[in-house]
């Protein structure tokens, strides 16, 4: 088998395993990454929400926030894991497509 094919299989395996990135932090009671807190966490950490931060944080409304579907915040880990895998497939699909397009543009040698 060609190495590139094996790499693609490796990516697929990683996508299927990706919910570990959701389940492990939950299991070990780890919170957000440092500097990536939401509004509630910010208030409990420093007692207030910095004014500029509050304004800018709502600037962009992502279609799949935090690799989940909107309104799924209260769902359990199995549902969130499924959403996580779907997010990985969608995100990686678009990423791969974009790189192929860029690659095509860049490898078109002008004569």
């Amino acid at each position: 088998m060609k190495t590139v094919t094996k790499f693609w299989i490796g990516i697929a395996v990683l996508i299927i395993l990706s919910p570990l990135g959701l389940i492990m932090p939950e299991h070990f009671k780890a919170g957000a990454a440092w500097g990536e807190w939401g509004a509630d966490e910010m208030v409990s950490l420093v007692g207030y929400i910095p004014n500029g931060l509050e304004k800018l944080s709502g600037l962009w409304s992502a279609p799949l926030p935090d690799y989940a579907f909107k309104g799924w915040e209260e769902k359990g880990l199995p549902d969130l894991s499924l959403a996580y895998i779907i997010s990985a497939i969608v995100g990686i699909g678009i990423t791969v497509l974009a790189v192929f397009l860029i690659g095509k543009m860049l490898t078109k040698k002008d004569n």
Partner: protein
Amino acid sequence: MHIPDGYLGPTTCGFFYVVMAPIWAVASKVVKKTLKAKQVPLLAIGAAFSFVIMMFNVPIPGGTTGHAVGGVLVAILLGPWAACIAITVALVVQALLFGDGGITAIGANCFNMAFVLPFAGYYIYRFISYNSPVNSNRRVIAAGIAGYIALNIAAGLTGFEFGIQPMLHKTALGQALYCPYGLNAALPAMLGEHMLIFGWVEAIVTALVVKYLQKQDPGLLEEGRM
């Protein structure tokens, strides 16, 4: 390490967009010159790998989470300029589609993870593995050390960018406007957790894949292809 919207003030955000613009331009130029059409799938795999490895949040029990970037491996296989493009695409999709990293911080996040990280990792790897045979253990160790140091440099930079915000932006009453933590808190937090845990993930992933490729397809590890 994905700085969200609101943590960096407009000055910092603008500064890093201005810094990244010529870097992206040079990256396109270099890659246009060196990338062969048959290497495009590998570039796409590099971006996909970086994307998915960043989804593996590793916990510090009772504390924060973090992750590897995979960018050092992409730089070893395709060169740092191609890695810059691959990781940039992954970061932009993560910001736009999933709100992972702010859109105002795309410049800063790309500077840390798509520029400094692959370049630091690539040159550390080249320096340590200099003149060693492609199948040598020194290559594996070089890949691990490069992964560890490069991720920590990127984390330190991120901590620095967070930490200068209180100095740059404050209300009349002394409240922070953006990231509320100064250098004395942000720098040790970002560096400490990456040196303790997340840096090792980047190190192990990078070293293991290089080790695997030595057996599977050593041609990919030959230098001077890109």
